[in-house]
C-alpha cells in the first residue's frame, strides 16, 4: 500500500541500533536492502528472492556472494570489492549498491530470525514463507 515502512524497518534492523529514532538520527541514515516500486495504485517491495540457482552467487568474482545450507543467499561484506557484477545479473534488481564499498542485500534478518520487513508490514503484503 506504499507506506514504505518495510524500507525503514529494514534499514533499522541493519543499523545495529536498538532504537529506531536513534538509528535515523545523525547524518548517515541506515540503508534499506529492498526497493519499493510504485505505480498507479500499485506498490510492491522487492527484496532478494534467495533464488534456487542464484545468478549473483555464480557470477560473483570474489566468492563473497554465497548460498548457505539453508538456502539463504548472503554476501560476505569483507570479501566484496563492489564490482557490481551481482547488480548486473540479478533479474529482480535486488542487490543494492552500498554507501561504502560492499553491496547490500536482504539477509532475511538472520540474526533475529524474522525478516523485519515482513514482521512489520501492516497489511501482510510482505510475507516470509518457504517455497519449494
Amino acid at each position, binding site marked *: 500500500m506504499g507506506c514504505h515502512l518495510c524500507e525503514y524497518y529494514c534499514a533499522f534492523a541493519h543499523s545495529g541500533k536498538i532504537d529506531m529514532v536513534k538509528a535515523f538520527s545523525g547524518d548517515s541514515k541506515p540503508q534499506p536492502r529492498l*526497493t519499493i*516500486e*510504485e*505505480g498507479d495504485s*500499485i506498490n*510492491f517491495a*522487492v527484496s532478494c*528472492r534467495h533464488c534456487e540457482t542464484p*545468478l549473483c552467487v*555464480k*557470477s560473483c*568474482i*570474489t*566468492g563473497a556472494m554465497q548460498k548457505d545450507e539453508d538456502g539463504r543467499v548472503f554476501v560476505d561484506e*569483507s*570479501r566484496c*570489492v*563492489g*564490482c*557490481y*557484477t*551481482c*547488480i*548486473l*545479473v*540479478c*533479474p*529482480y*534488481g535486488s*542487490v*543494492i*549498491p552500498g554507501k561504502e*564499498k560492499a553491496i547490500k542485500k536482504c539477509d532475511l534478518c538472520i540474526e533475529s530470525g524474522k525478516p523485519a520487513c515482513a514482521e512489520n508490514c501492516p497489511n501482510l503484503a510482505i510475507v516470509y514463507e518457504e*517455497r519449494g
Partner: protein
Amino acid sequence: MKYVIIGNSAAAIGCISGIRTIDGESSITLISDEPHFTYSRPLISYWLKGKVTDDKMYYRSIDFYEKNNCTALLGKKAEKIDTNAKKVVLEDGSTVEYDKLLVATGSSPFVPPVEGLSNANNAFTFLNWDSAKAVKEAANKDSKVVIMGAGLIGLKAAEGLHEVCDDITVVDLADRVLPSILDAEGAGMVQKHIEKEGIKFLLNDAASAVKGNTIVLKSGKELAYDVLIVAVGVRPNTGLVKDAGGEVNRGIVTDSRQATSLHDVYSAGDCTESLDICTGQSKILALLPNAYFQGETAGINMAGGNQTYDTAMPMNAIGFFGLHMLTAGAMEGECFEEIDENNYKRMFFSDGLLKGFILIGEIDRAGIYTSLIREKTPMDQIDSNLLKVNPQLMVFDKKARMQKLAGGK
C-alpha cells in the same frame, strides 16, 4: 569415475560445483600451473592498491578442495592430453588418468611484436597474481608508469597503481578507452573521469619500438618509463586441445554442453568460444561469470547430467575511481539514450527485443535489463516506455509480476 580439471579459476571451480550436484563421491583432480589456492584474478588490481589483502584473494573458502574431495596439483603444468590412453601428461613427465576431463586453461597475455619489447627492462604483463606481485615489486612512488592498452586490464592496472605511483600514462591504438565495451561517448565520459585522477592518455597511438627505458611511439613521440605494463589483449590457451586434435577456432570449440570434439574432454572459460545470444556469433567471451556457468555446465555433464548453457552474452561490470559502468549485450540496433553530466544510459533494441545496454553512473537494478536480454522478452509484452525510465519489475503485467515475486499466487 575419475574427473580431472586443468585450470584453477572460475571455470574449474564451477566445474567442481557442477560435478558435486550429481556425483558426491568420485575423486576430482585439479591441475594448475599456478602455485596458489584458487583465487580471483580480477582482484589483482584491488590487491595492487591494497584494497584486498592476501587472505581475501581466495575465490572460495580455504577448505574448498577438501570439502569437495578434490586433489589439487598446484604449480604443475599440463603438457599434453593423450586421448587414447585418457591421461594428461604433466611437465615433469608424470601422468594423471581421467575418465572425464575439463580443459579450463584460460588465456595468456598477448605481447605484440614490437621491436625490443620482448626483452625490455621492467616490462610486465598484468593477468595473474604473480604478475601483479612483480609489478608491485618494481613500482614505487616516483616510478613513471606506461601502460600499453586502455582496455579493462590496462585501466584496472592503472587504477591499482594509482595508489602507488603518481605518473601514469596509458597508450592505446584505439581512439577511445575500453573500446571493447563502450561506445565513443561513453568512453569519453569514463576517460574524463579517470583523467581527473591525474592519469594521462595517449590514444590513437602505439609503441613502435622499445629502446632502453624509452618507448618510441608510432607518432614519433618518445616516452621514458620506469615500469611498463603490456595489456593489449589476451590469447586463449588452446594448445592442449589443438595438439590432441580437437577443434579449435580462435578459442576451443564446444557444444552447448561444453563438450569439445574430443571424446570425454570438456572445456570452459576464457580458452573457449561461446555463442553470443545477442548476435548469434561464436566468440570468446572472457568473463568470469561466463567461465563459471560454462564450468558448472561442463561439470554437470561430466557427471552424467544433461545441462546446456545457452545464455552467454557479453557482460561487464566494472568501475574506476568510484565511477561504475555496467554493460551487456550487443551495442547495435535502435538506440535509446539518456545522458547527463554524471550518468550515461544507452539501450539498444532490435527485432522487438532489448539487445544491449550501457549504463555509467546510475546503475541500480541493471540486472532487470540483463534478464530481459537473456530471456529475450518481447518488448511488446512489457511496458517498454517505463523500462526506459528505470529498470523495474513494474514493466511486467500483473500476472508476470505475481509469477516472479509471489510464486504465481
